[in-house]
C-alpha cells in the first residue's frame, strides 16, 4: 500500500483503458468512440500517448505509464491533470 492511502482503502494507482473503445488515428490526434456511452473524444499530445501506451502495454502503474509516455517523447509535466481528464471522459479507469 502506498504511504498516502488510508488503511483499509484500496490502492488505485494502476490505470487501465476502458473496454471496447474504438480508436482511429487522424492527422490531429485520435478519435475514440465509446460504444457503451456513445461518446466520441479527440485525444492528442500527452493524452494520446497515454492511451497508446495502455493499448499496447495493458494495465500499468502510474509510474510505469509516466515512464512509457516519456519514452514516447512526451513531456509529462501535466501528467496528473491529463490522467484525471481521461478518467472523467471514462476512457481510462483506475483499478
Amino acid at each position, binding site marked *: 500500500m502506498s504511504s498516502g492511502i488510508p488503511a483499509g482503502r484500496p490502492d488505485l494507482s494502476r490505470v487501465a483503458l476502458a473496454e471496447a473503445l*474504438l480508436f*482511429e488515428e*487522424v*492527422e*490531429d*490526434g*485520435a*478519435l475514440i*468512440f465509446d*460504444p457503451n456511452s*456513445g461518446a*466520441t473524444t*479527440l485525444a*492528442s499530445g500527452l493524452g494520446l500517448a497515454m492511451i497508446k501506451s495502455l493499448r499496447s502495454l495493458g494495465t500499468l502503474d502510474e509510474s510505469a505509464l509516466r515512464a512509457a509516455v516519456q519514452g514516447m517523447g512526451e513531456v509529462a509535466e501535466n501528467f496528473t491533470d491529463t490522467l484525471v481528464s481521461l478518467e472523467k471522459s471514462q476512457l481510462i479507469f483506475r483499478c
Partner: protein
Amino acid sequence: MLTLSSCTSEQLHRALRDGSFRLYLGQLALKVSSDIPEFIAAFRQLYGDHPVALGGGEYDFDIAISAPALWRRWFRRNASFEFSGDTPFLPMEVGHAHALFEWGLNWAIASFLHHCLILHSAVLEWRGKGVLLSAVSGSGKSTLSAELSEQGWRLLSDELALLDSDLKLIPLARPVSLKNTSIDVIRRRHPTAVIGPLALDTHKGTVAHLKVSADAVGSNLVPAIPKLIVFPKWVEGAPLRVEPVGAGQAALRLIDQAFNYSTLGTEGFRRLVALVRMTEAWQIEYSSLDEARDALETLVAEHG
C-alpha cells in the same frame, strides 16, 4: 416523367385531395395531400420541376397539409402538418403552410432515414466534387447555398447531408429556405430567381423559399462524392479568412451538428471517420458572398 408544373390545376387539386398524388424527391417518394389553396399555390410554384405521379403508387412518407380540427378554425385559418396521420407540431396560420411543409419534411427525414448518417449541413457539388457546408443556424449557410446554387453549383440540399453506407452524399434537391434579410439579398443579386411567398412572423422571422434549378432536380438520383467539408460563418464587415481544420476537430464539429450519430452508434462513428479521412476540412469567415464563392471554388480546385 410528369412534372408538377405540367399538371393542370384541376388534376393537381384532385390528386392532392384524393390521396393519389406522389412527389419524387430523389430516392424518396412522398404521398402529399392537401386541401389548402395557399399551400397548393406555393407548392406548385416551388416544386414545378420535380417529378410527380397522379395515380398513386408506393411511397416512403405520408404527409398532409390540411385544416386542423374544427374548433381551431374558429380563431383563424390554420394549417396542420400530418405525418402518417399523426400531428407532431402545433398548427400554424395558412400563410405559413408551405414553410410548415418544409420544416415537417426536414423533421421526417432526420427522424426516419437512419440508413444514412444525417448531418445539419448544406451539400453542393462543383465540378463533380461534393462539398458539405456545415454550420449552426444563423451562420449564413442557406444564403451561401442559395448564392452558389444560383451561380451554377449543383444543390443537393440546403439543410441535410445524407451520407449513405457507400460514403456517398444522397441528393434531396428542394427549395432553399431563406430567412429575413437574406431574402432580399438573393432577390437583389438574382432578379430572375423564383422565390415563393413570404411567411411572415414565424418563429424564425420572415421565411421564403428559393426554387432550385431544374438541373439540380434532374440530378436528384445521382449521388455526390464528398471532397471538402467547409464550416462557413458570415460576419458583417469581416475580411475573408480561410483556415484549415484538422480531421479530428472537423469530426467533433460534425457530431455537434448530427441528427442521428448516437442512433447509429458504432456505424455512425465508422462512417464519420471515413468521411473526415476522405475529405479536407476548412473554415471560412466572410462578409462578401462573391469572396466566399471565389474562395470555395479555389478550395475545390486546389484541395477537393
